[in-house]
């Protein structure tokens, strides 16, 4: 009977199915294991997800799936993406273990499945570990409010591909590709954080006429609304807009990867109860991913740490207003076993974005601990590299290398890495009269993030900000040229140069003019 209960997986009272396939053949061995892991996830950790089909792919198939996921249209970019991915996997430069694909409808079983792709070159232990990781992602996809709003699916993308090819055969590849490139440039100006901007409310009786009537952050949509395109152009731009909505996911990248790794870690703990050797191998895999601080792995690193921290704090009851009132010494000794860690984690992934996740849960202690840890790691590295060569200077070297690891600066860098997948640019209220498109950079999130800065730090801070956030560079100007080409009118961008002086870049597609007039980026709400 116990065996039966293992095979039946119930989520919210509905039975779900899990299959592992290799081509058209179902892999019985892996299917059994996948079901076992799913059972642990659902019954012990309380995760929930729908039907899953794991597909084992070879390198080339995997590369093609990766390319099609990010760039579903068969453009040159997709071709390049495929070549890059294939190359990386062939030479083991970057191993990509899994990819959660789009849901699809299985007409035979009349059920919706989510496709998950796994590299068939992985070892047995790796595959199991990766499956555990994937269930974390699937839980997010099933529950998180932002992921739920992304309605991409493979059928839609296949339809888009068909239309794209028709356009290419009716017009020409060059013509279609030119517009595609323009659309890609514009896709950087989609509004990924609509709830983030503070719109000032209009007065009840508003008589003033302004175009646009409020600040418009979605420049892509503003373009679609205001420029007259040919029908085919509009269709292609609409398609690109829809496809690029997938970028919304970056808003929960840290949480998504962090939670998946957290869940994977839980599974490894479970394995360790019976098979310590396998568990050790799996844990090594996790640490390889979540213990290296590089831009590519930051989401894993930070998300995983933070979930572990939250679990510990909520398990020991170290949270809440009363706890915060205690002194440091009292806090250290405070323990009230509540075991609410897992519940809290599941609650977070349901409704939060990265922004809220980091702001509400990553406190100063967390960043201090993180900074200390990085310091230790760097010191160990320096000892290994220079310990024998320069035993006298070792302290100086350490000091020099670690000077930058300040928890506050670390937070600031994080902001750059995580929240800002692209600059925020908007069309100011009432600025558009049909002869010129004005764009302005928005840096108001800085103030919200850092709070009020002390006078003595202000100068250095502003210097740093100008260095990091100025938009005066070649690539921006090329992008502005493209936007101007689409609109058929001059385009201005209000930003600053690397000294922090406000500048306005104006271009009409051929000529670019930089003037020191203009109000520069927006700093205050």
């Amino acid at each position, binding site marked *: 009977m116990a065996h039966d209960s293992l095979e039946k997986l119930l989520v919210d009272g509905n039975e779900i199915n899990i299959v592992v396939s290799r081509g058209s053949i179902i892999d019985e061995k892996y299917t059994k294991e996948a079901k076992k892991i799913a059972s642990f996830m659902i019954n012990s950790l309380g995760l929930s997800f729908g039907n899953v089909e794991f597909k084992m792919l070879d390198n080339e198939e995997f590369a093609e799936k990766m390319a099609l996921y*990010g760039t579903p249209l068969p453009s040159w970019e997709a071709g390049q993406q495929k070549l890059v991915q294939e190359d990386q996997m062939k030479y083991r430069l*970057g191993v990509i273990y*899994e*990819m*959660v694909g789009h849901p699809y409808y299985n007409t035979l079983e009349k059920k919706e499945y989510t496709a998950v792709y796994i590299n068939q070159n992985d070892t047995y232990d790796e595959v199991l570990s990766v499956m555990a990781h994937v269930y974390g992602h699937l839980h997010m996809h099933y529950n998180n409010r932002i992921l739920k709003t992304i309605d991409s699916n493979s059928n839609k993308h296949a339809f888009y591909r068909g239309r794209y090819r028709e356009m290419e055969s009716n017009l020409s590849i060059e013509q279609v590709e030119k517009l595609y490139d323009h659309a890609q440039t514009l896709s950087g100006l989609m509004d990924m954080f609509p709830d983030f901007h503070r719109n000032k409310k209009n007065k009840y009786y508003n008589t003033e006429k302004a175009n646009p009537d409020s600040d418009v952050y979605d420049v892509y949509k503003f373009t679609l609304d205001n420029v007259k395109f040919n029908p085919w152009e509009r269709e292609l731009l609409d398609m690109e807009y829809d496809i690029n909505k997938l970028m919304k996911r970056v808003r929960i990248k840290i949480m998504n990867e962090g939670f998946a790794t957290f869940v994977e870690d839980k599974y490894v703990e479970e394995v360790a109860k019976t098979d310590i050797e396998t568990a050790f191998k799996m844990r090594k895999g996790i640490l390889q991913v979540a213990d290296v601080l590089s831009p590519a792995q930051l989401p894993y690193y930070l998300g995983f740490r933070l979930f572990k921290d939250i679990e510990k704090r909520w398990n020991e009851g170290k949270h809440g207003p009363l706890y915060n009132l205690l002194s440091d010494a009292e806090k250290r000794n405070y323990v009230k076993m509540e075991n609410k860690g897992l519940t809290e984690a599941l609650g977070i992934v349901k409704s939060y974005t990265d922004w809220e996740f980091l702001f509400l849960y990553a406190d100063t202690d967390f960043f201090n601990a993180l900074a200390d840890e990085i310091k230790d790691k760097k010191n160990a590295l320096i000892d290994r590299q220079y310990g024998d060569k320069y035993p006298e200077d070792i302290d100086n070297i350490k000091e020099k290398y670690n000077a930058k690891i300040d928890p506050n600066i670390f937070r600031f860098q994080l902001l750059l890495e995580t929240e800002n997948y692209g*600059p925020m640019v908007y069309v100011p209220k009432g600025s558009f009269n049909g002869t010129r498109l004005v764009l302005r950079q928005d840096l108001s999130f800085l103030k919200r993030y850092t709070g009020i800065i002390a006078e003595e730090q202000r100068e250095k801070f502003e210097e740093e900000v100008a260095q990091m956030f100025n938009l005066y560079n070649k690539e921006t100007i090329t992008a502005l040229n493209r936007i101007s080409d689409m609109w058929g009118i001059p385009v201005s961008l209000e930003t600053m140069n690397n000294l922090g002086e406000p500048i306005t870049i104006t271009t009409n597609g051929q000529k670019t003019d930089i003037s020191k007039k203009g109000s520069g980026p927006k700093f205050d709400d």
Partner: protein
Amino acid sequence: MTSELGDAEDKYRRKIDKEDDLILSSIDIHNINDGQTVIKTIPVKRNPMISYSAFGEGGGEGEGDGQGDGQGHGGGGKGVVNLGIDKRRLKQMMQSWGLSFSKPGKKTKKLYKLLIAENGVDENQEKTIEAMLERHMATGYFKEHGFKVNVTDEDMRYNLIQEKELPNLSATFVIMRDVSGSMSSYGEFSATIAGLIEFWLRQRYNNVVNIRYIAHTTDAVEMDSKKSQDFFKLVAGGGTYFQPAYQMVLDMMDGKHYNSISASRGKIEYESEDVFLLHITDGDTGDNGEELYSTLKTLFPRLTKAFYLQVDTYSDQFYKAFVSMGGEKANAVKSGNDVSYKNVKKVLDSLLN
């Protein structure tokens, strides 16, 4: 494997062909001619976006090791693409530049040879000829054009003519290079163009191409064909005369004695094989007299095609004379010292078409 991506990879390849990202050096072309695959590393192309200066250009680490789940593709995209280029791919590229590799009118010519053969024609060939005659009589073709052989695919519907590939003609490619001091900086460019023409000929003549290298200043000498890389690095002092070099080609054809340091010296059988000549110079010559022109007059009828590449704009005199004397057989072009895709395409376009 299903190909949902379709020809996306080809589109990417065409794009980098066009946009100067794929620059083949003369050594690459030499290696491809030798039958090797050359791996070129090309930086990943990105559509420009409004971006922070700190991240705009360069910087950034390699993308994604670890358990990436395919999210956030738009963010990264740094890296390189490794592309293998071999004979097949180079042929594709040349074709996309508009350089044709087929021999036009081959089929008709061959059939005509069969028709006038002494042995007569066999049963199957008769059927084809009957079909052609029937068609032409019905359409009134003979009335308009007189009696002409004009076989179409439809006439060959019995498809019983077994095309016997006539043995391909062989070709000799004479590369003549001005090695005076003023030409020292044009080595790479010359080698690239010569290498690509060599490749073009090898494709046309099924690889049966002899290559002869002539270096000249005021005097001419044949160089070793096995050391082609050295040939393009040669620099010598002194002035420049064209006459000795052209005279040497004539001597090679006539089997006379000439100045050579090549081990594989030999006669150019211009009656039984096609002869191509490429002359690379900066146009700065000391002789423009009768002697030179009379040499050219003798030489041109013996050549299949003569290419003249002037890499600088010293003088137009010889350029004009070359074009006017060669007529259809002479293709000449002036070009700067630029190995970019656009320039190479321009040069080859005007030389080979």
